[in-house]
């Protein structure tokens, strides 16, 4: 915003350095001050509200309780890492001892069996959401392009999309779980079943916004460009590559951003429901524990979930800005 604004002013009429400086400063200051005011007000309101809500597990956690928990969780993570190192050392010694006794034994290093810390859960959730989202993109974008290009295909597939789009992926979850445990059988699985379950759930919910937006973007392409392609009599694939994809990139990205937002929300719920590792499980486990720390830990998780969702969205936005010709579609 600021960059465009100052460029425009410079272009319009030469201004004094001072005026330019003030203009720049006020916008910049506004960009810092207003959000800060918002956050401070929120924190105040939060701590006031928190101290007046009593639950059977103690007071509702305020900002300071969350801050304590963050440091607790980091400490726990570090302790767990130390235990992990000790585990590998012990395992190594045990393997050595067994090799000495039984030379035919082939030593094997097994992964650490201890608990997943909060940071591990964050990473698990992130990996799951990104893989599920990528899988969805791989399916949805080509499908969306095909539907956008062909009216007939659109008419054929549209009812199916319209019926499945409003279905909460959580409704699919029991089916997904049963099918995965029946179909995905291997003695040394590459991925855990729980990961596959979460991944498919994420994929199921993020497919629809991408298909719909992509097909919409393709169908509402500028007719002039289609005509250009016709005049040049471009082969089908080149037409898609040079005309269709660049033209519909803004719409595709809008769909992707929506999908990723939905996917993140659904993943947390799915993890809670299916007890799959990740932030959702963390929240559910803490709720089940019912200790005096539980609520503040859940609140910490809520904030972290929010921050990660925000970061995911910003990342998509940056990608969109990089790749898209239509900068205005990435303004908000």
């Amino acid at each position, binding site marked *: 915003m600021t960059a465009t604004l100052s460029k425009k002013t410079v272009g319009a009429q030469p201004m004094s350095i001072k005026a330019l400086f003030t203009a720049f400063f006020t916008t910049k200051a506004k960009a810092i001050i207003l959000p800060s005011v918002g956050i401070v007000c929120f924190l105040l309101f939060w701590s006031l509200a928190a101290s007046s809500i009593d639950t059977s597990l103690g007071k509702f956690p305020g900002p300071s309780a969350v801050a304590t928990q963050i440091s607790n969780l980091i400490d726990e993570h570090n302790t767990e890492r130390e235990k992990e190192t000790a585990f590998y050392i*012990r395992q190594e010694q*045990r393997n050595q001892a067994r090799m000495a006794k039984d030379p035919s034994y082939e030593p094997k290093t097994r992964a650490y069996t201890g608990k997943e810390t909060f940071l591990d859960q964050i990473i698990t959730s992130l990996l799951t959401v990104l893989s599920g989202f990528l899988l969805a993109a791989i399916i949805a974008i080509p499908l969306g392009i095909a539907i956008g290009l062909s009216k007939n295909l659109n008419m054929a597939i549209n009812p199916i999309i319209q019926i499945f789009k409003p279905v909460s992926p959580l409704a699919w979850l029991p089916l997904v779980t049963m099918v995965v445990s029946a179909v995905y059988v291997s003695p040394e699985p590459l991925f855990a079943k729980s990961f596959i379950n979460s991944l498919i759930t994420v994929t199921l919910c993020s497919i629809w916004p991408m298909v719909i937006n992509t097909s919409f973007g393709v169908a509402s392409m500028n007719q002039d460009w289609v005509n250009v392609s016709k005049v040049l009599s471009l082969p089908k694939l080149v037409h898609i590559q040079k005309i269709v994809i660049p033209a519909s990139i803004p719409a595709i990205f809008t769909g992707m951003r929506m999908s990723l937002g939905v996917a993140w929300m659904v993943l947390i719920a799915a993890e809670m429901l299916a007890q799959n590792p990740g932030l959702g499980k963390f929240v559910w486990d803490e709720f089940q524990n019912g200790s005096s*720390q539980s609520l503040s830990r859940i609140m910490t998780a809520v904030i972290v979930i929010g921050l990660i969702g925000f970061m995911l969205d910003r990342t998509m936005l940056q990608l969109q800005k990089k790749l898209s010709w239509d900068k205005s579609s990435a303004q908000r």
Partner: protein
Amino acid sequence: MLKVPLESHCKRICQAVIVATCMSASMLTTPLHATELGYPEKEELTFGFIKLTDMAPIAIAYEKGFFEEEGLYVTIEAQANWKVLLDGVIDGRLDGAHMLAGQPIAATIGYGTKAEIITPFSMDLNGNAITVSNEIWAQMKGNIPKQADGKPVHPIKADALKPVVEKYLDAGKPFNMGMVFPVSTHNYELRYWLAAGNIHPGFYAPHKGDTSGKIDAQALLSVTPPPQMPATMEAGTIYGYCVGEPWNQQAVFKGIGVPVVTDYEIWKNNPEKVFGITKAFADKYPNTTIRLTRALIRAAKWLDDNNNANRPEAVKILSQSNYVGADYDVIANSMTGTFEYEKGDKRSVPDFNVFFRYNATYPYYSDAVWYLTQMRRWGQISEDKPDSWYKDIAAKVYRPDIYMKAAQSLVDEKILSKSDFADLANEDGYREPQKHFIDNIVYDGTTPNAYINKFKIGLKAGDKL
């Protein structure tokens, strides 16, 4: 080149000598033949548990390295409820789990999901209690005789609850209570307590498709997962519940209810949880089965050592968020030899949680038979069965043979001493007739049908709904 085989020959000879000595030694001391225990066939295992303090042997075996010393690399996972846990063991997602004693039995006789599940290890004695909400407690309290110091006389019988239940029924309101699973110890204990106080807890009639257990019921019992008990009672959905710790003490701490009776008072030293594995697992991985039993025995021993001296450390471990996760104080309240009833009324119950004393870990056939008698009493087993049937089922599910192999090898390796398993050498698996029930009815595991006929409320031989 020459050196290596020579060395291995030596080793083999040495091993043979050791094995032979062990064998001859054990032949002298016991009738069991101990050969040197082999390496585990399956080393990476996943065990499930429900957030209850009686899962302690699993947590301790992990944290104290007993599993690792057996060459087992165990991952421990909390499960959402007993059904999920049982399904996990049946479909192989879990290799073994902390189970309700009734679960392997019910699975074997096909009540609920049919599967062959066995138990080589009984996890604990006692450890449950019945809690009622403050509202019910206020109405019941007047019916309970007082001690000299003004506190109620324990054990509190359900007779004190009877007028309250009748009041609700007269007003047309159902009297709902929670238990954790249809074949749980808690269900049978709650039923036992209610029936001993002349409150009918209802029959099951699976042959008619009725598995809700509410036929003729005065108190309606329904299933709630243990960790959700306090919240469900707080919400007013149930007026009381029977559950393991720490969920009774949690009610005291939250100030939402009062534990009225512990299962120790309903049946002194009653068997509670077991460690369940599938029969297929035990057959396929015999060494792993023995080794995991060894680790669990050692953990149970550790928990009871020196008069519960290790309990505070155990409570600290259990209060970690990945195990039970409740506050230290809440868990400590029942794990360290005391039990808090009404707030401030803390009494000494040194045997509230027993993990090793009184042969707590030995899987007695008579324990299995007791569960079967209760299943028959409440209609979960809808037809009469001869005494021999009870005996056969118990022998199918409870496996003291595996337990004794594990115990023997621990003694042979001098990890535990023979005195730790004092009376077990000639054990036939049936306890002496047990007298300490709240209604003073004597239980003899060898005559289940005669036992069932002694109850005032409940199906008797020949009854069919």
